[in-house]
């Protein structure tokens, strides 16, 4: 097994791994964009109950949610060029990263479509009727009334999807993409300091996750500002030990504590 544990390696690895961060973020960004567009398009036939397309989109969602992402990566990387070859399209010189982004994009799209579907269904029908009654068209009612509210409802779930995506990108390494996990692997083998390398890697993922989480929480608050409740609507807890700590973890920033009465 490797060298004796040396904490200083954690710090030397840190900037080196951060150097490949852009590859990771590129996969996340590209896949997210693809996923949002695909997810939205796939959700539409199911929302409007379009006969055949509805089944296809169900099938799509089942496949990408029901098989491991690692298998999907292999299938796309090795399988897609073969299929395209039949149509006389040569993709053998396309960069690996393109396949990776495509696979993650489609994978994310499956989750996004489910999220959008349920979010749209949860905006009450009455508001759509009201929109029609003031003279809006179906398209106007959807884009101006339903979509903004559905988006706000979807953000907490989308946050989960985005964070999962960030962590899943570590599997891209299995196709030889030099993103953070790949880099940490090679640094570890080079120096024989495995644990330090992984600690460093975990720290970076954690930091990025926390930043993303904060940003998304902010977005959620902003989109849900119409639900702002007066202070007395927040839950009251008995003041307890670790109260503040608990507040931090439960996201209930605005809990009020009832003073102990004797």
């Amino acid at each position, binding site marked *: 097994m490797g060298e004796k544990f040396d904490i200083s390696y954690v710090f030397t690895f840190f900037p080196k791994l951060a150097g490949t961060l852009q590859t990771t973020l590129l996969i996340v960004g590209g896949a997210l964009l693809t996923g949002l567009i695909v997810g939205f398009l796939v959700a539409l036939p199911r929302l409007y109950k379009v006969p055949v397309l509805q089944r296809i989109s169900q099938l799509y969602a089942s496949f990408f949610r029901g098989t491991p992402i690692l298998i999907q990566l292999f299938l796309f990387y090795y399988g897609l060029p073969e299929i395209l070859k039949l149509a006389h399209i040569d993709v053998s010189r396309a960069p690996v990263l393109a396949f990776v982004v495509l696979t993650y994009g489609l994978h994310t799209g499956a989750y996004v479509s489910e999220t959008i579907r349920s979010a749209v269904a949860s905006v*009450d029908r*009455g*508001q759509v*009727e*009201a*929109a*029609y*009654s*003031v*003279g*809006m*068209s179906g398209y*106007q009612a959807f884009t*101006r*009334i339903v979509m*903004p*509210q559905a988006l*706000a409802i979807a953000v907490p779930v989308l946050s989960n999807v985005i964070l999962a995506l960030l962590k899943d990108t570590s599997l891209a390494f299995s196709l030889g993409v030099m993103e953070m996990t790949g880099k940490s692997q090679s640094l570890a083998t080079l120096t024989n300091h495995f644990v330090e390398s992984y600690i460093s890697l975990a720290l970076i993922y954690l930091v990025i996750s926390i930043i993303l989480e904060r940003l998304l929480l902010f977005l959620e608050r902003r989109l849900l*500002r*119409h*639900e*702002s*409740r*007066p202070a007395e609507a927040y839950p009251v807890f008995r003041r307890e030990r670790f109260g503040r700590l608990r507040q931090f973890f439960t996201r209930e920033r605005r809990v009020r504590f009832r003073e102990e009465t004797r």
Partner: protein
Amino acid sequence: MIKLTGITKSFGRNQVLQGIDLQVEKGEVVVILGPSGSGKTTLLRCINYLERPNAGRIAIGDFEVDCERAGKKDIHALRGKSAMVFQHYNLFKHKTVLENVMEGLVIVQRMPKETARRRSVEVLEKVGLGEKLDAYPSQLSGGQQQRVGIARALALGPEVILFDEPTSALDPELVGEVLAVIRRIAKEGITMIVVTHEMGFARDVANHVVFMDGGAIVEEGAPKDIFNKPQEERTKQFLKRIMPEPAYSI
């Protein structure tokens, strides 16, 4: 002014409206009464095409549509002539009070924002919500929300406002403020068709009362005739159950 001819509507095998004929003159306040399930709400929703009638003709002002042949354009034009106030308010939850009222003016009627804003503020002041322009619906009481709903309908300047049980979802305490607003705009000569269970309101404000049962109009006439000397047995039964005391004691 508004003329419905032979409106029928069925949900599956259940026929809810069996050929309704109704005429409403300009400036009239028509109240539709009837037990639940009698089709009064469905009739109202048909006028605004939220429910698609199976057959019949709807005419509002100079615009007439044959329900069996109505296309998207006809429906759109018809909706432009009427506005609706809902039982559950149905305000746009992500928009402020002012935005709720402005939405139809800016998006549908393509009014310049500044004009729309001025008009909306004016209407909101009329319903007594001049101070709540920037509040969200979730911050308002039921009565206030319904008054926003009324302002939203009123601002569009429709030929007729349709009220679908506007006070049924409200606390008894808040019913008064909403009825007062409806009463006030009725005095301004706006044509209204109101489905309600508020008998006092029907008696005071209506020019014309329609009693429906089983998807058909049983009896219609001036409120004092309907309430004091109803002709049909079914109307008598209904009024007796809903108002045990004599309608007028003098």
